[in-house]
């Protein structure tokens, strides 16, 4: 029931995005701009690219993700649609599930398009496992979307939510950013440091689990703020 209602909200958000294309276009524009700026900023030597590449892609992913998070609840503020959702016979947690799925989906679309661009612009060849890289990006994005949606709902009730959200979000997602950047670096260079990689993946999994469960208990109160 909870998942079905969340799925309906996710479908509605996708349909809204399909009609307007506001969020995905701004996310893609931002990530492409990051690629271009960094491509000009760093000399194209192999050593420098290897050192900064993991950080660059996560800067693009997370900052573009914030644009998506900011919009997730803004569409519900117009005409008091959030109240319409709360009046319906569904658990408030289903709103959280729908919004998290929406943010996660849009971020994944943006990542699928911008990651190959990063590789082309920097003439970078992935040495390590592509499957592991996909896993890290999946876990990092999921963690970012779960925390971001919870805080997005909290910030949505404030006047300057678009300024507030990044300020409260980034200190909390620091562990996931560090783990994602470090794990991505280890995979891209194919350094073979399996133990370190497993440690970062564990951190990502635990973080994701905590922030998948915590909002199920907290989200109803977040909406009351």
């Amino acid at each position: 029931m909870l998942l079905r209602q969340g799925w309906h909200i996710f479908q509605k958000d996708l349909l809204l995005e399909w009609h307007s294309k506001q969020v995905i276009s701004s996310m893609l524009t931002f990530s492409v701009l990051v690629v271009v700026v960094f491509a000009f900023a760093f000399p194209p030597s192999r050593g420098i690219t290897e050192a900064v590449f993991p950080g660059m892609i996560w800067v693009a992913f997370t900052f573009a993700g914030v644009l998506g998070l900011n919009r997730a609840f803004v569409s519900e503020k117009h005409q008091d649609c959030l109240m319409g959702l709360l009046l319906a016979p569904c658990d408030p947690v289903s709103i959280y599930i729908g919004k998290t799925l929406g943010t996660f989906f849009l971020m994944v679309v943006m990542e699928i398009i911008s990651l190959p661009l990063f590789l082309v612009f920097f003439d970078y060849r992935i040495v390590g496992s592509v499957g592991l890289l996909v896993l890290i990006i999946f876990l990092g994005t999921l963690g970012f979307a779960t925390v971001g949606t919870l805080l997005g709902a909290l910030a949505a009730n404030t006047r300057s939510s678009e300024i507030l959200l990044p300020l409260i979000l980034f200190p909390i997602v620091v562990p996931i950013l560090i783990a994602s950047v470090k794990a991505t670096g280890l995979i891209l260079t194919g350094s073979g440091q399996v133990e370190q990689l497993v440690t970062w993946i564990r951190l990502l999994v635990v973080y994701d689990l905590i922030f998948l469960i915590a909002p199920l208990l907290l989200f109803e109160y977040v909406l009351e703020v």
Partner: protein
Amino acid sequence: MLKILSLLIKPSSGKLLIDGAAAGDLNRKIKGKIGVISHNTFLYDNLSAYENLQFYGKLYQVAHLKSRIQEVLSQVGLNYVLHDPVRTFSRGMQQRLSIARAILHEPAILFLDEPYTGLDQNAIEILNSVLTRLTDSNRTIFMVTHNYEQGLELSNRVLILVKGRIAYATKTEGITSEGFKKLYRQHVGGGQ
């Protein structure tokens, strides 16, 4: 008060009984019996009339959704703009679609908060006909309005609230608009 009655917020004291059931644990079940029309429409501008109703119909688990959508849209006279985005609608059309949204799941209780705000004459007539139809089918309608004429015409009981408390309650039979205006001023302290 409407937020408490429609189970959006919990009362700080007292007990809320809706359709004989105490609100609380049964909130989700009771919410399915409630419809709300407010001056905000709860509609998504970038979705069409059909897509908006389809979304709310799924949330309320309305049976035979497609035919029900056609039915409510014809009741509010919006069949001809079924697939047009709501952002292209006039204020009156949006409010009529909001009425369709609120009655889509055939609620036992309908709450209306200043529903006449910004409505054109045609939309007022449609709203009144929908309300009359609902009253005839034994449903409770609770309307908050400052439009005395419309309120008295449609209701069989009136309440005057002052600072959250019922200051006056009576049946509407025999009360004129002018007489009620005087009663209202007396109770809210607005002079003679």
